[in-house]
Structures are given as structure tokens and as C-alpha cells.
């Protein structure tokens, strides 16, 4: 679902990475692009405005670090803002001390309430509960029938009678208690937020049941209207969470952001497919970086934050950008990197790393070899590798217990890396050029392109995989 939005951001950021520092004009341009990207993802205009404003304030703030690339700044800021918007923890269901725990589903027509009811019932059963379904949608022809069929499929009882929603709800609750069921899920008819009569009715159902949880079921493809609707339902029913349906499509999912923002309640579940099993709990904290397509860059940043010496890093980065990065700097960075744990783990957290690289087995002992080679060089050789003739290379190979081929390889790759960094600007394509490795979830759709496998020109320049 979030892939297209991800792509969009990706394109923006790739372009950004190729730039030098950001002036006000650039910031404005970037913000415009982010705005368009968010709007095309159906994030509500008001939500977008808030987001953009918050990002603008931070991107133009006087206190921005001096030696950073625009991409880094913006990515970090946008990510934090998105996370803040989506924010919060995953919803934890706490069960009523006096069962049954009552769950009420409401939403517009066709948002997927009936299907979600059955899926939710199945989910509760998997949690070791004994759910019971109440079909209070007496509006749509055969809605109750649909619920009965689904209920039979998952082996959960369904209560309904052709009276009115409130008495069906009451009757169902009594029946659930009689049967000793501990979770009751109430499916209601779809209704428009402006339909006073029906909104009144669902409010009465809610008052009769006093649900422990009221979920707003919303289609992931919803546009700008999501906000108004969610607001109206929230006013009427005091929502506790959101169930986002039809997530397996290619909608950019902006509605999720909007609704979350308006209602201020977590997205609790995702309905991810047509089978009853296609239902999962939602982890808000994982979404922002998914929207941004950043792999799990956050964890990486956290790690780096813990382990990296800011001063040294800043200097090295600057030298890398200006092309004066030496083998000494490289050695420093390598050592810092080692503190962060095994390389393979790190790579998997990184966005934009081609799959063949990410999946490759890295022997951490090889890192030691690199270290040894550099350590066997004299200070002059480290700052100016051009002085390295055949005999020096042989000496280094002997000194580090490697072969001249290995020494040559290191030198050549190092040179290539430096050249590339200088040539295309700060790390431009390295991190951003590849398609972000989308975390496993996005591979759900039956037609997802394999993205991670693409090797971009830039990464090819660095990594001739042989």
C-alpha cells in the first residue's frame, strides 16, 4: 500500500542527495514536493499543512548543523514528523474484567465492516478467546447472511434477528452471556456521517451496549473526505481505534495518516486481503519509515547515535564530500562501525542497499584484514595512496599477512569510492539510489514487483559484484 508514496519520497530524496547545502529557495522547493507527494497520497490538506509547517520550521531553523547534507536533514525531519503524526503505540486490547468484552464496528458503506468483523472474530479466537458475532446491519440486503456464512467458516456463532439494530444488539449481548462468550463483535450497517438518523441509531446501539472498544473501519483508498467522516464518527461514538481495510491495494494510504491525526487514536488493525486470515495488528511506530522507504533506518540512527563520535564523524563526512577522505579516516570509520555490531545486521537496516549486497554473507574477520592492511601503511601512504608502488604494496601485504592482490583491491575500491563521492555529491546515490528494501510486509500483494534486486548505476559503480 505504501509503496507508491515511498517511491515518491524516494525520488525527491534522491534528487536532494545530489545537492549541496539548502538555501531557502531549495527548502521551499523540497517542501512543495513533499506537499504534493503527501496530497497525492490522499493525506488530508489540513494534515499536510501542519506537517509541512512543522518541517519548514525545523529545516530553516537557525540551529541546523553546519556540515550536513540537505538530504540528511530533510529525511530526518520528515521522518520524525511523520512518526509524530502516526505516533503512539500499537493498541493493546485489554479485556473487560466482567466479560464479555464488547467491540463495536462502524463506518461508511462498503468500507469492509462485515468482513472485518469476521476477521476480528478469528483474530480473537487466535488469542484464545471465545468470540461471538452480532449482525446489526439490517440495512443492506443479505448483510446478516454474509456474516452468517463467514461466521460458519470460522466457527463463530452469529446472532441476529429482523427487528431493529438496538434490540438485536441487546439480544445478542444477552445471548453471548448465556453462551459464556467472552468477546462480542457487533457489525453495524454502513452509514454516512451526515445521516443524522442513522448516526443516532448507531449511537443508541453504542449506548445500549457500552462497548469496550469502538473501531472505525476505513478504506485505505479513501480520499480527503476521510477526515470529515472520521471526525463525525468520533463525535458520535468516541472511537478507540481504527481498522484500515483494503490495504493490499496500491493506495498510498494517506487516509491512515489523516484519520489517525483527527481521531488521535491508533490504527489498531490492517485488513490485508480477501481471505479471512488476512488481518494483522498494526504497529504505528513502523509505518513512518515505511512511508519514507528508509528500511529500518531509525534503528540504525539510534545505534549510530549511541556509538558514533559526532565530532569525528562530521569531519570525516566533510572530507568525504570534498574528496580529501583518507585511508586514516576510513580506518576511523571502520572502527566505529565495528562497535555497532556485525556488518550483515547493519546492512539489512540500510535503505537503498542493493539486495545482492544486503543478502551477501559478510565475514567480519575480513574487516580485520582491511584494518590490518591500512595499519601496515605509513602515515604518508595513508594520506596519499599514489605513492604506493610495487615494492611498498609488497611490504604492506607482508606486513598485514595478506597478498598484494588484496592490497590492490582495497586501493582500487577506495579510489573508486572517493571519486564517486566527489563526483556525484555527498553520497548521493549510495544510500538513496537503490530502491529501498521494503520490509517483508510489502511483499504481501500478489503482484509486487521485486524492488530490492535492482542494481542502480551508482551502486554498480561501487560494487562490481564478482
Amino acid at each position, binding site marked *: 500500500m505504501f509503496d507508491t508514496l515511498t517511491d515518491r519520497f524516494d525520488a525527491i530524496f534522491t534528487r536532494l542527495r545530489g545537492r549541496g547545502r539548502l538555501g531557502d529557495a531549495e527548502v521551499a522547493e523540497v517542501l512543495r514536493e513533499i506537499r504534493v507527494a503527501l*496530497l*497525492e*497520497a490522499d493525506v*488530508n*490538506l489540513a494534515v499536510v499543512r*501542519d506537517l509541512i509547517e*512543522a518541517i519548514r520550521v525545523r529545516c530553516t*531553523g537557525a540551529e*541546523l*548543523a553546519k556540515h*550536513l547534507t540537505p538530504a*540528511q536533514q530533510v*529525511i530526518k525531519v520528515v521522518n520524525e514528523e511523520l512518526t509524530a503524526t502516526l*505516533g503512539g503505540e500499537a493498541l493493546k486490547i485489554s479485556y473487560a474484567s466482567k466479560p464479555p468484552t464488547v467491540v463495536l464496528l462502524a463506518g*461508511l*458503506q*462498503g468500507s469492509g465492516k462485515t468482513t472485518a468483523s469476521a476477521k476480528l472474530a478469528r483474530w480473537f479466537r487466535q488469542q484464545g478467546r471465545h468470540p461471538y458475532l452480532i449482525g446489526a446491519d439490517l440495512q443492506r*440486503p443479505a448483510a446478516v*447472511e*454474509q456474516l*452468517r456464512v463467514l461466521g460458519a467458516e470460522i466457527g463463530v456463532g452469529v446472532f441476529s434477528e429482523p427487528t431493529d439494530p438496538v434490540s438485536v444488539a441487546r439480544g445478542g449481548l444477552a445471548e453471548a452471556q448465556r453462551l459464556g462468550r467472552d468477546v462480542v463483535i457487533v457489525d453495524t450497517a454502513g452509514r454516512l*456521517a*451526515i*445521516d443524522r438518523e442513522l448516526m443516532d441509531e448507531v449511537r443508541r446501539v453504542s449506548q445500549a451496549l457500552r462497548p469496550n472498544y469502538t473501531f472505525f473501519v476505513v*478504506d485505505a*483508498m*479513501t*480520499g*480527503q*473526505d476521510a*477526515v*470529515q*467522516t472520521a471526525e463525525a464518527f468520533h463525535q458520535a461514538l468516541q472511537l478507540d481505534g481504527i481498522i484500515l481495510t*483494503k490495504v*493490499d491495494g*496500491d493506495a498510498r494510504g494517506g487516509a491512515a495518516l489523516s484519520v489517525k491525526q*483527527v481521531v*488521535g487514536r491508533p490504527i489498531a488493525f490492517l485488513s490485508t486481503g480477501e481471505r479471512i486470515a488476512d488481518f494483522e495488528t498494526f504497529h504505528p511506530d513502523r509505518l513512518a519509515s515505511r512511508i519514507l522507504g528508509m528500511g529500518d533506518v531509525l534503528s*540504525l*540512527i539510534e545505534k*549510530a*547515535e549511541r556509538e558514533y563520535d*559526532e565530532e569525528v564523524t*562530521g569531519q570525516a563526512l566533510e572530507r568525504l564530500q570534498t574528496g580529501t577522505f583518507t585511508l586514516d579516516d576510513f580506518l576511523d*570509520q*571502520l572502527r566505529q562501525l565495528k562497535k555497532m555490531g556485525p556488518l550483515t545486521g547493519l*546492512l539489512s537496516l*540500510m535503505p537503498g542497499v542493493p539486495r545482492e*549486497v544486503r543478502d551477501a554473507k559478510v*565475514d567480519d574477520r*575480513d574487516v580485520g584484514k*582491511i584494518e590490518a592492511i591500512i595499519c601496515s601503511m605509513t602515515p604518508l601512504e595513508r594520506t596519499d595512496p599514489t605513492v604506493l608502488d610495487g615494492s611498498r604494496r609488497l611490504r604492506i601485504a607482508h606486513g598485514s599477512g595478506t597478498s598484494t592482490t588484496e592490497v590492490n*583491491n*582495497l586501493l582500487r575500491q577506495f579510489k573508486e*569510492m572517493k571519486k564517486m563521492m566527489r563526483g556525484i555529491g555527498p553520497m548521493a546515490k549510495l544510500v538513496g539510489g537503490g530502491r529501498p528494501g521494503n520490509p517483508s510486509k510489502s511483499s504481501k*500483494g500478489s*503482484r509486487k514487483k521485486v524492488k530490492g534486486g535492482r542494481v542502480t548505476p551508482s*551502486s554498480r559503480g*561501487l560494487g562490481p*559484484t564478482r
Partner: protein
Amino acid sequence: MTLVIVLIAVAAVLLVSGGVVVGTRSRRRAPALPRTGAPRPGAPRPPTSPPTSPPVMAATEPETSSTPETQTARPVLRDRLGRARGLLAGYFDQVRGRGGIDEATFEELEEALILADVGVSTTTRVLGDLRDKLRDGALSVTDPPALLQALQDDLASMFEGDVESLAYADGDGPTVWLFVGVNGVGKTTTIGKLALRETRAGRGVVLAAGDTFRAAAGEQLESWAERAGARIVRGSDGADPSSVIFDAVQHAASRGAGLVLADTAGRLHTKVNLMDELRKVRRVAERPPGQLTEVLLVLDATTGQNGVVQARQFTEAVGVTGIVLTKLDGTAKGGVVLAIRSELGLPIKLVGVGEGPADLVVFDPVEFVSALFG
């Protein structure tokens, strides 16, 4: 290999951790929530409007009848849409109230159109044209209301030349209309309402319950068939939808029924196998004696920009001939059809404005656009 990876890693981590230095500033989150200021006047409406007032009834009358009906159809649409005034109306009132036309005017128009789900690119294009016309002198307006009118005219003119009526086959065989769309947009309901309209117009209607996937979809259609006095052909659950539609066409042909309304299961346009299934359904529906004259994409008015993608994918797969825009009686404006129209040229044929059988009306660009403007 390892070397390369290490180099990448060093460089990448450097870059990433460089970002850390920027972002360590603590901040607080702006608490601002979007709100919709204007109240939403909405007259209460009976959940299912039974055959009610004459004008509403008239709206459902087929176009075969005389002109007065088609004229009464329009007020109905406006009336229905009018209830959802609110947010957007505020924007346009603001624009109208301005002294002159300036950059802020255009910004407000832009926001209003985006809030109506028209989409950024279509909005930009439409407003850009308007601006150009103002500059060239092709349009000489000085006050905001006139500008708004010009914009409305521009938008309505996007639908110029569209044929809104549904086509019937001219030969002997039964006409087949195929309904496609993603899940939950209202395909079955639309078919039910149309069945009612067409049987009232004296046509023999056969409903093909091609949604063999969703639980009780057949039952849902059946209750509509009863209401409309139409025949229905159903397959067993999970049956091949093409075969159900084939049977329905055969049945219609043998009984001399003139029209087959073919339901299909909702499917997301991203599911390759399901879209392939739909292609087959279309091929079968085309087979004589049936004549497929319409493939209607049913689109929920609440849909955002994904609607464009849906329209594109379904058009590629089964050659959509027109759009049925449902649920337009809510707060959603359905502006995405403008984007669809400008990108794919698909006409809008019908508009669903309520749950009652009478609440399916012929699309009227002028009404639609003016509703867009609150």
C-alpha cells in the same frame, strides 16, 4: 566482495549518522488538528427512501420517456448533493467575498479543489489554464464570483461531448452491461437500482450474480431481483463467474429478456489473477447472442487519488466505457472523476445519491461541478 560491502557500509553509515547530528534538537509536536469549521447542514433522510416524492421517482424513469423527466432529474441531484455542503462552501464563500483576484484567490481555489479530491495535477492544470486565460485577456473578469463561474464552466466543459446515457444493443440479442470495480464500492446495489429502473421501463431484465466470491453476494442481488421483478441467474459459491454470466445471457436470450446486468466480485486492481479472471468474464459476456455495450466501473465517491489508478487498470483490463459514481450523498465530493476524465477520458454515466432504489440518477456535469463548489 566483502571489501565492497565494507566500503558501502562505512560510507552509508557515515551518511546516516551524519543525519543524527542534525536532528538531535528536541522539539514539541504542534498540537494542531485539522478541523472542519463549518457546520454540516444535513436534512435527516429516511434510511431507505421508498418510492417517495414524484420528482425523485421521475429521476429513475428511463430516458426513453419524454423530456420533463430528464429535467426533473437535475434538481434531484442538486438537492441531494446540496446537503453535503460545508467545508468547501466555506472556501468558496471566502473566495467570493474577496475584493479582487490575486494569488491568494488562486491558492484558496487550489485548496478547495484538492479537498474535493480533484488531485494535485488536475487542479494545477485547470487553475493554470484559468490563470493563462486571465493573462491573455481571453477571460476578462475582475471579481471573484465571475472567476468562480469561469472555473465552474471550465470544469463542466471537461465533460463536453460525453454521452451519459447507457447504450442498448441494436441487434436481436440481449444487451449486456458489465459492472466492475474494487471491493465495497456498491456494484451490487447499483445493479439492483438499475434493475428496478429498467424493469419499470418495461424491459425484461436478467441479473447475473457473477460475484460468486463474497459471502451472500448472491442473496443480496436476489433480494434486489425480487424487488425489481427481474430474473436472476446464480451459480454456486465459488463458481466461475464467466459461466454464471454466460448462463444469464443464454437465459435472457431464450426468454426474450432484453437486458442482462452482470455483477462481478469486487477486486483490487492490483490482483493480477483476479484481473485476468475479469478479462475472461468480459470475453464471455461479449459472446453472441449477448451484446456487451457497457462496461461500467463503479467508483465510490469517497475514493481519493487511487481512483485514477483503478480507472486506468480496469480500463486496460476490460475496456471500461463509463463510470458510475456512488455514495455522492455523503460529504465526499468525488472530485477524482475530474482527474479520471482528464487523464483517461472516461465519461460518468450515473450517480448514486442514496440508498433508496430511486437514488440513482443520470450524471449532469453542471450539477456535479456546482455541487463541488458547495
